[in-house]
């Protein structure tokens, strides 16, 4: 049982189990609390609940003009590493094959050298995000340990992934094992930190979408 076998086998399996348990526990635990929506009469011509919900989710993807200007760094840099992570995780052929092994779903990927470049950009963007969090007085006040743990556990897979692709740092199998282990830790932490926003954002945005959407107000 080499480190790579351990990482690819039991470690990853345990991590996925904990991830699913934690995610469902938090997700269902939060959303089975009493809904108690305030039943206000919607303004006529305002969108129905479902379309208001979806509109809420869609509109929040792009900031209103004044907030794009002042929050420019967070908004632009945020998109760089989010889109970067999405490309690296879901359009890198070996990752697609992993997902296919787990779920049977498959789709075409991007050339590996292109994804590697994206990976480097993503890593740089994540570092920039950390520096911004450390320098901005607002973020200094509101940041918590969770923010830094979540940052580190998102950065490590990208770093070890890049090192493994470039055959640097250690023997390929060792770095690949470290890459998979860093993903295991990421998956284990995921439900208990702020990474859960990846699922909960849909509900948070949806609720506001319905509340303001049915008043005919802008979202």
């Amino acid at each position, binding site marked *: 049982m080499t480190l790579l076998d351990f990482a690819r086998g039991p470690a990853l399996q345990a991590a996925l189990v904990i991830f699913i348990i934690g995610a469902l526990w938090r997700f269902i635990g939060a959303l089975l609390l009493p809904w108690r929506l*305030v039943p206000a009469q919607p303004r006529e011509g305002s969108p129905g609940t479902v379309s208001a919900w979806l509109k809420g989710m869609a509109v929040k993807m792009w900031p209103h003009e004044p907030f794009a200007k002042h*929050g420019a760094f967070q908004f632009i840099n945020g998109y760089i590493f989010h889109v970067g992570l999405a490309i690296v995780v879901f359009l890198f052929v070996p990752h697609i094959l992993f997902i296919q092994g787990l779920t049977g779903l498959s789709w075409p990927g991007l050339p590996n050298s292109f994804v590697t470049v994206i990976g480097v950009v993503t890593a740089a963007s994540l570092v920039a995000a950390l520096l911004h969090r450390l320098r901005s007085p607002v973020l200094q006040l509101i940041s918590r340990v969770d923010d830094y743990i979540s940052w580190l556990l998102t950065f490590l897979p990208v770093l070890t992934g890049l090192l493994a692709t470039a055959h640097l740092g250690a023997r390929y199998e060792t770095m690949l094992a470290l890459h998979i282990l860093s993903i295991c830790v990421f998956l284990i932490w995921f439900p208990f930190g702020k990474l859960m926003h990846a699922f909960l954002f849909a509900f948070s945005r949806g609720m506001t979408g319905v509340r303001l959407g049915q008043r005919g*107000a802008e979202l």
Partner: protein
Amino acid sequence: MTAKTTASGVPYDAQGEMTDQARRDAAMKGFVKEFGAVAASHLESCVRCGMCSEACHFYVATGNPAYTPIHKLQPFEQAYKRHAGPFSPVYRLFGLVPSVTVEKLQEWERLIFDACTMCGRCTLACPMGIDIAELIKKARHGMFKAGLIPDRLQLMDRTARAWGSPATPAEDFADIIRDTGEELGVPMNVDRDKAEYLVTVAPAELTEHTKALADAAKVFNAAGLDWTYHTEGFEASNIGYLNGDLELQEKMTRKLIDCAVKIGAKTLVLPECGHAYGAARWEAARWYGGEVPVRVIHMTELLAEVVNSGKIRLKPIAQSATFHDPCQLVRRGGVNEAPRDVMKALDLKLTELENTKALTWCCGGGGGVVSNTRADPIRYKAFELKKREVDATGTQRFVTACGQCRITLNLGAKHFKWDKKVESLLELVADNLAD
């Protein structure tokens, strides 16, 4: 009611003779009642990105990070994580999330009340769609139960509970209406048994701006509507909606709706006031199980209706003007076009402020802040944002559709010796009715 300061030197007001422990428990009970799936989905999704700070006039004007909107919810979130979140049993068992201390609540009173007008601009900025304004309102319920609200708001709460209005005892209402009518020569209807429209008033209109009472009457008479004021349901501003006193909010709202039903009114018209609209239009259904038995509209919506339907015709003013969108009416209420329709009918050439409609800067006085004199310093700073944008338009007139905003803007103008006159849309319409 005594002004105190916490160990860390932060001023706060406290009401009632509760022990610290009792105060904390009351706050927790108030908070825990609010933790439904809606609050949970919001409180679980914050990623501490800080974008809400750039939207808040108090942070932008003062640069003080403590005014970051999500930071104002810290004790509320802590209570959620400890008492209602999915992991709360684990947090309590291992003491991972401490219970909220009374010192923290005392310290946060200033942030939840003085530094937040619940204007909702941060809600528009939050990429996770967290309705911070809504959560602040929910947090205020707990703070009220704990007796930790600004004394001025407690004062208004007591008068409203006693008189039914923070401005005048209900008994004097009918006289004020009749006196104003005679003084300005405007036929007034008050306490009629039957009417199509029940018209309600804001506290300022019962004290300094009594002319507004006549203006409303002129418009309704000109439009030939069957309307009346009524002593049993006249106070539209809802202090309970601002200071967290849910019982008072319910009582004030029921007064209006029940009176409208009693006189068979099909429409309840709210005066030019922001939070009156929030309380009566969007939360009345809370007390009536989903179906409010009467149509509730804002004065601005009424003006647009009578203007657009041709019930009244207006003399053109033919001047340049800019408009301040009251937050509760436009950003939180969705009444974007009505005021603009009316201004077009008045032939006012509108130049929009740089930040306008749903993105407008708040006047800085809403949500009980203007009544809470402890908040004056930061309110004046926030006012400068609005002043700069109004000056930038260089228009002759400056109009708005909310009494609270007008008071706040006038106080700011006086403070900065700004010669700008803040005008009411209703007054403009009443003064320019075509004969």
